[in-house]
Structure formats: structure tokens, C-alpha cells
């Protein structure tokens, strides 16, 4: 352990410190505002220390590596978690249950995802994954008096534990063949063999089960709708973004460090998964009346889109994944943020009926939600369009015509159910629904401000993507020098 290691790990250490501090403050005196403040400040400080690190690759043997890809993902995760925190305050203020521990768990889950994206060793990977998962179990079932929260929590617990077992067994098999758990050394071993040994392929296959579960891609997607529906809306936003994005970051790091792109059978597995995810996600969403479930199926499809860029396996592909992750994070946060904003003390606003005529009641909220849905559908002038265009470019660039064709086809299918929600929002309703009791304006300021920023970011990236592209290119310069 060197002192400079501490400097490079500072964002993570700050999260650890903030979690401990929150715990102590809760023990001394419960105060929602104080805990919320500490959490916000901790995220800001962590982002600030992250900005101090330059993009050069720094090894912390044997577990971690801080390179451009890691810093990009850390920044994305920290900022996303910051927005989730902002959205959480008004949401949890309405509820009587103990609110303070929520922030503690949220910080820990963020920490887990941060460990995940900078790990270059199976042990660090597993530690990060478990910190993330264990925090998520309790976050999902946090509002325990709700009807579906126990169901969602237990389902996630059992399935995540099972998928962890698969992942561990896969790691054990890889270790049995290669004799190492560090990604670069596995890459060195793979270079020395001409063909992928059967045992190693089995190991990778089992690991794909574990990774696929966290990404929520077909055929490991069954948990997504139930968990999305049962979890509190801010937690759903967290699962859709940080948890999936962290795993995606890890997957790309593993594949590029171990140089596993050159094995046709591994790529075939991912091709099938990508096509199945796009199709299943979009088709199952078509007749969905529940907004949270609809967004769950939509996120399955979107992970399928991201896999198309991942399969390109070159620099352009990673750039496309990075860009799409940013666009998708903003969009998901915005969409679930609207759900959180409209939720009352009894239940989340997850029925399509809750949104009928929303535009005439709350025009600003409806406008933000419309922008988010259009971005999910990939309509120009939104971030989602540029992201999808980037993915298409990377697919065309590597001549993956089947994947490109499926992507285009699915975008058209997807358009239907996004438009359906938008149409419901603009529908004229005869019966005047009573306005829900609005919280004190100062309370909902954090949520409103966060939503406004998300909406502006979405449009800004959609209209002027160059700055983000340059940022991503600059950070990726130290990553993947092999391509």
C-alpha cells in the first residue's frame, strides 16, 4: 500500500467515510435533512477528487486499475447517484418510515458499483458486486409496508444469490485453467493458447450468466419487471442505471484486458443475447399498462442495443457504449424521476391511467417526461438519437448487418409504446382529477431542479454532442491502446 494509492482511491474512500458518518449521525440523532445534506456533499466531494486525477493509467496491484475508462465510469456512477439522491428527498419525505438508512444503503450501493468498474481482478470484482447486491436487496424492499416490495426484494435476493453462485463457479473454472484471477494475466494466458480450451469456455459461459443477470438481458431478464415494479421509484432508477452501467463497464474492461473479442463462439453467444434482448424487451412492452414495468422491458431492449456496440469490439464500439450509457442514464433518471415526482404516500404512480391528461394538469412534468420518452425512442434532437446513431455507426463499421437490421427494426417497434404513453399524457380528460397535495415548494425544489437539469442535459447532448464525444475520446485515450 502506497500513499499515492490512497490519493487515487480517494473517491471511494470518501464514500466509505460518508456511509460511516451517516451511520453515526443516525445513531446520535435522526434528521432527514442532515443525512440528505451529508450524502449530497459526499457525492460532490467524491466527484471533485475524481476530477483531480488525470487520465493516465495508474495500477493498484493486484486489484484495481485507475485508467480513463475507470474514471469515466466512476464519474458517471457518482453523478447518477447524486441525481438519485436529489430525487429521493421529496419522495421519502412523504413517507413515515425511517428514511435515514436509505441514504446509507444508497452510498454503499454506489461504492459497490465504483469498486466494480475499476477492478481488474476476480476478487475485487466479486467484492464490488456483493457490496452492490447486498445494499440493493434492502433498498428494493425498503418501503416494507408496500404491497409488492417484499416480493420484489425476495425475488432479487434469491436470483442475485443464484447468479452470484454461477459467476463464482465460472471464475473457479477460469482459475483452474489459467491459474490466475487477474484480467491482464488471463489475457497473457489466452495469447499462449491457439484455441479456447473447453473448460475455459464453460467458465466464461457461467460467468456470462452472472453478468447477464445484473445487466438484465434475455434470458436472464425475468426479475426486471417485478423488481422495477416493487422497488421505490428512486431505487428503480438506481437499478436501471448504476447497477447495469457498472456491470457493463466491468464487462468491457474484462473483454478488452483479456482480449476475449477474438473468440467467435463467445461473440456468437452475445450476438444471440443482444438480438433476443432487443426483440423480447420491445415485444413484451407493447401491451404493458404499468409504466414501471414498461420501462423495465424498455431497459431490457436498451441493454440489447448497447450490446450491439459492445460486439463491435473496437474503439468506436467502446465510444458508442460510453455515449449511449450517458444518454441512457440521463433518460432513465428523468423517466423514473417523473414517476417519483408523481407518486403519493400510498403507492407509486405506475399506472398508465395516472398519466392520462397529465399535460393539462402539470405541463412542465409532462414536457420532461415526453422528452425522456422521445429520447428512449431515439427521436432526433434528443440524446437518445445521437446514442443510437453512434451504435448504428459502430455496427455498420464492423459489418454486423444482422444486428444493425434488428436494431433498426426494434427501434420502430419501440416507438409504438413510447408514443402510446405520450398520447395518454396529451389526452383530454373529462373528469377533473383532484390535484394531489403538493409538498412544501422548498422540499420539492431538489427534485424539480434535478429534473430541469436532466431535461436540459438531454436536449443539449442531443443538439450538440461534440463536447461529450471529445470528453469520452480524451478519457479513452489511455484505455485500449491495443486497438
Amino acid at each position: 500500500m502506497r500513499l499515492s494509492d490512497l490519493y487515487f482511491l480517494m473517491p471511494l474512500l470518501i464514500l466509505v467515510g460518508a456511509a460511516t458518518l451517516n451511520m453515526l449521525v443516525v445513531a446520535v440523532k435522526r434528521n432527514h435533512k442532515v443525512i440528505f445534506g451529508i450524502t449530497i456533499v459526499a457525492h460532490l466531494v467524491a466527484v471533485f477528487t475524481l476530477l483531480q486525477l488525470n487520465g493516465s493509467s495508474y495500477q493498484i496491484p493486484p486489484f484495481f486499475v485507475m485508467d480513463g475508462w475507470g474514471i469515466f465510469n466512476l464519474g458517471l456512477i457518482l453523478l447518477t447517484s447524486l441525481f438519485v439522491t436529489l430525487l429521493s428527498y421529496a419522495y421519502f419525505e412523504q413517507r413515515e418510515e425511517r428514511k435515514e438508512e436509505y441514504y446509507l444503503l444508497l452510498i454503499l450501493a454506489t461504492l459497490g458499483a465504483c469498486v466494480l468498474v475499476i477492478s481488474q481482478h476476480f476478487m475485487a470484482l466479486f467484492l464490488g458486486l456483493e457490496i452492490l447486491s447486498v445494499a440493493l436487496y434492502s433498498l428494493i424492499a425498503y418501503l416494507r409496508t408496500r404491497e409488492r416490495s417484499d416480493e420484489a426484494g425476495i425475488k432479487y435476493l434469491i436470483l442475485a444469490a443464484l447468479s452470484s453462485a454461477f459467476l463464482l463457479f465460472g471464475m473457479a473454472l477460469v482459475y483452474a485453467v489459467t491459474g490466475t484471477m487477474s484480467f491482464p494475466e488471463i489475457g497473457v494466458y489466452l495469447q499462449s493458447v491457439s484455441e479456447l480450451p473447453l473448460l475455459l469456455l464453460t467458465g466464461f459461459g457461467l460467468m456470462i450468466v452472472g453478468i447477464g443477470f445484473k445487466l438484465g438481458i434475455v434470458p436472464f431478464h425475468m426479475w426486471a419487471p417485478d423488481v422495477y415494479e416493487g422497488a421505490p421509484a428512486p431505487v428503480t432508477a438506481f437499478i436501471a442505471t448504476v447497477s447495469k452501467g457498472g456491470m457493463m463497464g466491468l464487462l468491457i474492461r474484462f473483454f478488452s484486458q483479456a482480449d476475449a473479442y477474438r473468440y467467435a463462439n463467445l461473440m456468437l453467444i452475445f450476438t444471440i443475447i443482444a438480438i433476443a434482448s432487443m426483440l423480447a424487451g420491445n415485444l413484451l412492452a407493447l401491451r404493458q399498462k404499468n409504466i414501471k414495468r414498461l420501462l423495465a422491458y424498455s431497459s431490457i431492449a436498451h441493454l440489447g442495443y448497447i450490446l450491439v456496440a459492445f460486439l463491435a469490439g473496437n474503439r468506436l464500439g467502446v465510444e458508442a457504449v460510453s455515449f449511449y450509457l450517458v444518454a441512457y442514464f440521463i433518460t432513465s433518471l428523468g423517466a423514473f424521476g417523473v414517476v417519483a415526482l408523481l407518486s403519493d404516500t400510498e403507492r407509486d404512480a405506475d399506472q398508465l391511467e395516472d398519466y392520462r391528461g397529465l399535460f393539462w394538469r402539470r405541463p412542465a412534468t409532462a414536457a420532461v417526461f415526453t422528452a425522456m420518452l422521445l429520447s428512449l425512442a431515439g427521436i432526433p434532437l434528443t440524446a437518445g438519437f445521437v446514442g443510437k446513431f453512434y451504435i448504428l455507426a459502430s455496427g455498420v463499421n464492423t459489418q454486423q448487418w444482422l444486428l444493425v437490421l434488428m436494431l433498426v427494426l426494434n427501434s420502430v417497434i419501440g416507438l409504438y409504446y413510447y408514443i402510446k404513453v405520450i398520447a395518454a399524457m396529451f389526452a383530454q380528460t373529462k373528469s377533473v382529477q383532484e390535484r394531489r397535495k403538493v409538498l412544501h415548494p422548498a422540499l420539492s425544489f431538489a427534485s424539480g431542479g434535478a429534473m430541469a437539469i436532466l431535461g436540459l442535459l438531454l436536449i443539449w447532448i442531443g443538439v450538440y454532442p461534440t463536447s461529450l464525444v471529445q470528453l469520452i475520446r480524451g478519457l479513452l485515450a489511455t484505455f485500449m491502446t491495443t486497438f
Partner: protein
Amino acid sequence: METTATTHLPSDYLPILIQFAAALGFVIFAIVVTHLIGPKRHSKVKDAAWECGVESVGNARTPVSYKYFMTAILFVIFDVEVIFLYPWAVNFRGLGMEGFIQMIVFMTMLMLGFYYVIKKGILKWE
């Protein structure tokens, strides 16, 4: 095929497999044979569920006090903590100052957590 200390073939593990089969086979054999040839005498007292010598009462599916579970979890946490302490104590000189600092950090975190659960009233039993 010649094997050295570093290369093991799958066939080298055959004895372990045989051992497993033998162990499993013995268990099955013992259960089946005692079941077949053992004498069977039934009586009301003998067929009753045995609860540590106390007369059994009611259904087993009654709510168990929640505190019991929390105490059990606490026990597990501090049990695991002690497991980490032993190897550290044995290698105290070898690990030196760095190991000492790491252990202090670890213990501090745990003690802070302990303070939290105490304040939360986990050991209040009335």
C-alpha cells in the same frame, strides 16, 4: 502418462471420486439395511415428537421473537471478526506497523457499527 508435482491430470482425482462413492454408498447401505432388518415396535409415547425431554405443545409454526434473530446476526458478525483477529495476532510481528494500522481501521469500522446497533436498541430485551 507421467505426472509431476505441478501437473495434475483429471484421472489423478479418481481416488477422491471413489472415496465419495464409498462414503455415499455406505450411508445408503446403512440406512436401507437398518430399515429392512431392524425390529419395529410402536407405542404412543415412542411415536410422539421428542422435544428435549419436555412434553411437546402445539404447532411448530409459531412466531419466534424477532430479537432472537438480531442477536444471532450480531453473533455471526462478531464471530467472524474474531476469526480475522487470530491470524493477525499470530503474525503480528511479521505484519508490522502496516498490519496494525489496517487492523485498527477494521476494528474502528466494526466498533462504529456496534455503536449504531446499540443506539438502535438492539440489545433491549423487554
